[in-house]
């Protein structure tokens, strides 16, 4: 069944300094899809993701969230995970995860259960009282994910969430993310500049090119889930990676030309 979660309709975005970050971007993400936005640095991935979250105004075209009242997190069920963990260093892990609920007016007592659930989903039960500085990079990222999923979002937007992590932690979090995605039935838009990560995770990869940012390829990855280490070493995986790599190279040539 097709039921769009977010729709970009010929979206342009020009910043006040004249930078054309997005030009004529149209895309439809269906409910339950895991879509990766793949492209070189500076091609407008973050800009597109922020717009999908309802942050900032489009300069042309329109964005629709057919399943939500408005493009707002919390009320409408959008979760956002930044490239950095973006935790409040002065607040405990519990308070950091509580934040979205707290801003919506939920008391600590009422939120306790949901916060603990979210922490346990990312494997951090027992750390509610810790402070961010006491955690490793991977654990901080887990807290950040727990904070995004505590509101039970339908649409999860992730901006290179594992970009700063080592490969081992990254693979592990990739697996955990896929498990959560399958069990919770999210729609995910995942920004990355790693071909391998995008192929491993996604149903579909949108390749972007820069200056101006636009979508140059839409590649379905039809390998079945659950995916695990054996997928990583499969022939299919290798084939998809080559295909996506080639598309990415073409995208970067377009830019050079």
């Amino acid at each position, binding site marked *: 069944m097709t039921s769009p979660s977010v729709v970009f309709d010929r979206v342009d975005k020009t910043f006040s300094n004249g930078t054309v970050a997005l030009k004529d971007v149209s895309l439809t993400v269906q409910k339950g899809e895991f879509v990766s936005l793949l492209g070189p640095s500076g091609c407008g991935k973050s800009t597109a993701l*922020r717009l999908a979250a309802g*942050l900032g105004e489009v300069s042309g075209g329109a964005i629709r969230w057919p399943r939500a009242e408005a493009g707002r997190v919390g*009320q409408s069920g959008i979760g956002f995970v*930044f490239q950095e963990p973006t935790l*409040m260093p*002065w607040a405990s892990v519990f308070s950091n995860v509580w934040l979205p609920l707290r*801003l919506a007016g939920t008391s600590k007592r009422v939120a306790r259960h949901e916060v603990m659930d979210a922490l346990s989903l990312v*494997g951090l039960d027992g750390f509610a009282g810790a402070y961010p500085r006491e955690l490793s990079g991977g654990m901080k990222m887990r807290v950040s994910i727990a904070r995004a999923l505590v509101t039970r979002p339908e649409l999860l937007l992730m901006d290179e969430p594992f970009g700063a992590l080592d490969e081992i932690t990254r693979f592990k979090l990739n697996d955990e993310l896929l498990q959560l995605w399958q069990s919770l039935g999210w729609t995910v838009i995942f920004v990355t500049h790693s071909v391998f990560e995008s192929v491993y995770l996604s149903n579909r990869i949108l390749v972007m090119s820069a200056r101006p940012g636009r979508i140059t390829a839409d590649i379905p990855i039809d390998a079945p889930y659950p995916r695990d280490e054996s997928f990583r070493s499969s022939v299919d995986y290798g084939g998809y990676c080559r295909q996506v790599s080639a598309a990415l190279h073409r995208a970067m040539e377009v830019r050079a030309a």
Partner: protein
Amino acid sequence: MTALDSRRAARMRAVQEDQSAHQRPHSERVLRIAVPLAILVALLALWEWYVVAYEVPHYLLPGPRLVAQAIVADWAVLGPALMVTLKITFSALALALVGGVLLAVILVQSRWAELAVYPYAVVLQVTPIVAVAPLILVYAPTTQSAILICAFIVAFFPVLSNTTQGLKSVDHNLLNLFELNGASRWQTLFLLKVPSALPYFLTGLRISGGLALIAAVVAEFAAGSAGAQSGLAFRILEAQFRLNMPRLFAGLVLISAAGVAIFATTSLISHLLLRRWHESAVAREN
């Protein structure tokens, strides 16, 4: 399970951190007190020896023993003077904290207010207080209030500028997160901007604490006030006038001690508030 392992490892790390937090800073703290203390004792001994060995007259340079005696003997004069100075210092600091923080919040909330007010705060800051003091003395109802106003003006700016800077130095992504979650202006202020600004504010507090004392003393020199209401600065001037060197030194020692106490207190407050999370207060460990 790997998740369990990492959890256990993290707990162990936390425990180790706890233990070393008790051990290492202990010897560190002893050193921090012992070294300056040893130097102080050595200097005092040298001073006393010099004064005795060369039979330096008291009206030129009293020995440390004489100064100590003066503190005790002249306490009836110096004690109340110290209280006056401290009262002005702390009143000025309290006013500066309240005023500085309130104004900083207003400036950050409204771009117009910032454009209108900030330049004048800077003018007030860069004009030497000794130059402004005579004017304030003319217009203020009492000398004491004039001194208070001077100390306030000096202590006010570091709180204002540091807090303003802090309120503005909020992580942009956290701001985005708050916006995404529909945070109100007040929620953003109290849950995000204020805690982000705390380390900056505390820097302002430490600077202002010291400056408030300095300004209280300087303004009193400028005022040259006399009588029962006068503070340590006047007592020092008076002692100099009468060539009562032991009392002059005694007054100086008391001002110094007050300054050190204020610095220690503000540093302690800062440490207590930040030790759980801020890099500046966390012992570095590798």
